[in-house]
């Protein structure tokens, strides 16, 4: 009987959260349409509630990341009390294994984890899409060479490969960014090449070639604008993967190094609390999950728009 009541309560909570999220999304959509210039408002009107919810989540995360020192009640590395203090008015989410304020760490974690993930994804995209477009446009042996290298890199499971490389080059934030960017650029390369393959056979590309246009202009002016929609959508997805990978590496101790706040290592450091029935260590994991879901909602919508489908 108790189990049933527990289950129903949980169900009720989930329903309440979904309704609240939908409500917030709806309010946001209405306000955004009213405030945005005509062109943007037209686009927003087509966005489903899920996409609006995703946009809110992203905006909140970015704001928190940028304003972290202003919002956080304490310093990032400041030891403010005893270890594992429970939730209270002075420490809203309690303290961690070293007595640092949990809420503060969570807020700074947004800055570190999200910022690093963004830089990494950007790098992976710059590398992957340039090489992918180049391979598709030039073709021949260059395409073969690049594609086979990518095949080899992709044959190794990414997390193990990342661990291996980080052990070789040593753990630091810069190294981690470079390693993950390299691994993820292979996925971007494959997509960029596949998309560009369909574009290079178009007559307008042939016309540009016959005009005598150089390779760079061919890629940047003729092919890239037509490949941008799927690439942007992929950026969102890739961002989530990178984000999860950083957290995973941090959890394993090879990612962002202490005392820098990071969601992945926060889960690991406080994992003991779970055995006492405290959900605090799961909050950073929840933060990761929420952002992932939010970004995916937005990406789904963008993919939908790019594919030209209507409802």
């Amino acid at each position: 009987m108790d189990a049933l009541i527990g289950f129903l309560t949980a169900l009720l909570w989930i329903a309440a959260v979904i309704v609240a999220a939908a409500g917030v999304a709806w309010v946001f959509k209405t306000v955004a349409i009213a405030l945005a210039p005509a062109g943007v408002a037209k686009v927003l009107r087509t966005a489903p509630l899920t996409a609006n919810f995703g946009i809110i989540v992203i905006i909140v995360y970015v704001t928190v990341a940028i304003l972290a020192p202003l919002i956080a009640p304490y310093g990032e590395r400041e030891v403010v009390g005893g270890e594992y203090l429970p939730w209270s008015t002075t420490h809203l989410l309690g303290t961690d294994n070293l007595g640092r304020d949990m809420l503060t760490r969570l807020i700074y974690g947004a800055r570190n984890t999200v910022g690093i993930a963004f830089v990494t994804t950007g790098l992976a995209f710059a590398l992957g899409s340039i090489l992918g477009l180049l391979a598709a446009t030039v073709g021949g042996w260059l395409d073969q060479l690049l594609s086979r290298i990518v095949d080899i890199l992709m044959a190794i499971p990414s997390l193990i490969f990342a661990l291996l490389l980080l052990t070789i080059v040593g753990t630091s934030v810069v190294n981690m960014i470079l390693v993950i960017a390299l691994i993820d650029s292979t996925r971007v390369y494959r997509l960029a090449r596949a998309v560009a393959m369909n574009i290079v056979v178009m007559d307008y590309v042939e016309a540009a070639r016959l005009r005598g246009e150089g390779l760079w202009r061919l890629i940047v002016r003729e092919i890239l604008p037509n490949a941008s929609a799927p690439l942007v959508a992929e950026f969102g997805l890739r961002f989530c993967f990178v984000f999860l990978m950083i957290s995973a590496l941090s959890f394993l101790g090879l990612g962002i190094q202490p005392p820098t706040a990071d969601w992945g290592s926060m889960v690991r450091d406080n994992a003991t609390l779970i055995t006492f029935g405290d959900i605090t260590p799961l909050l950073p994991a929840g933060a990761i999950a929420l952002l992932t879901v939010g970004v995916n909602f937005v990406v789904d919508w963008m993919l939908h728009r790019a594919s030209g489908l209507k409802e």
Partner: protein
Amino acid sequence: MGQTDNPVLLSIRGLRIEGRSDETWSEIVKGVDLTLRRGEVLGLIGESGAGKSTIGLAAMGFARDGCRISGGTIDFDGIDLRTAPMAECRALRGKRIAYVAQSAAASFNPAHRLIDQYSEGPVQHGVMSRDQAEHDAKELYRRMHLPTPDEIGFRYPHQVSGGQLQRAMTAMAMACRPDLIIFDEPTTALDVTTQIEVLASIRDIVDQFGTAAIYITHDLAVVAQMADSIKVLLHGEEVEEADTRTMLSHPQEAYTKSLWAVRSLERPEQPPAGPDEVPVVSVRNVTAAYGAVPVLKDVSFDIHSRRTVAVVGESGSGKSTAARVITGLLPPLSGTVMFEGQELPKDYRNRSKDQLRQAQMIYQMADTALNPKHKIREIIGRSVQFYLGLQGRQLTERVRQLLDLIELEPDQFIDRLPSELSGGQKQRIGIARALAAEPRFIICDEVTSALDQLVAEGILKLLNRLQAEFNLAYMFITHDLATVRAIADEVVVMKEGVVVEQGGKTEMFRPPHDPYTELLLSSVPEMDPDWLDRLLAERAAGGAGAGVKSADN
């Protein structure tokens, strides 16, 4: 044509259909009436966007995605298809009303054999057992004059040619012996020589089973052969309807008359160039291949200034490949391409900017020839900027001049994207882009085949005018002999990579011909409703290129 006493099979009254674009509904069919008696064939003609296909589908009680039937009644043999429950409509479709799509290649499921797809309908509707269906399929394949009717059903769609596939599809539509078949441009994607056989088979089988049909096409000459009466549509409204002979000889409305007039566009042949004049482009003994497959064998022809050379032939005859050799996209194995007496490098990458500038190309599909992300200003302007080095205001001024030249209002069009243009306007932009380079020579690859007749006529007139104005030499690739009449001075007939015959236009249209040219010429439908009968009789007697196999069969 004695069906006037037959009972009415399909009666459509005040049909209105709306289509959605950007969240607003606009009417695309505006109150059309249609009556079809049993065994009667009605031709629906009109330009693209006239609503022909939409009406054809509505006759099955069906509206495409993004369309809805908003008014009127569709009465099929006592059943109102608009109010009938879904299950009832489904039971009718494929059984009593069948549909033959334009592109058989895209409509067959490539993963199943023809006979499996044939049997699906009759078995599903409970008309025949699987064995009966297979037996019946062979019988119908025979009646459709398909080669080896007993075996062809066991092939996959990609293993038979386009013309055969279209006939297999017609046979499939016949499977349940429907009362009504809707043919949606069944021969538009086929070569003229193949078209004849498909037309003859379709007409035969419709006759034999006394099936009523709606025949949708934009080709007047085709509809003249097939239909008992013709209905002309424009922008979703009926222009006029009459029986075929009356319609052909005495069209009432101005629009119909203008459609009829297009076919008679003809330009006089220019006097031939002097013997010592250097041709602008000269193709000499070119042999070319894709990998190991030879496509061109020892091809030679000259193109002089102010003259148009039409290269004609069926698909696969190597006409487009010849263009690719001239532009340098496909370096030939042997032979040379001369430009004003100078040999051009074989590969376009080795040609100088000026050599590239002198030879421009206009593509068949204007949709894919213009970068959808670039504005007109950039599409045309890039050539001007790249070849002539104009910048800023001068560049804009030149683009505006070019737009004027192709008869598009500069202020209105310069900042549009290609998606905001109609098909004919896109093709004009393609012409402007070629002109922007100030070339001596332009290759036109089937530039009018994707366009409606009236629009195509406008493009041809424009090309003729520009040629005189800028002393251009054209190489005009086409499969349509009406277009040849309208624009060419010389004709080169190609078959399987070989030049079969070449010479002045007047001479080419006058007998005696090479047998292949004869086949090609005689296959072009004429406006005379008796043309097909006459041609078939002639071929049976061994004339009109009967001995020559078309590339497709």
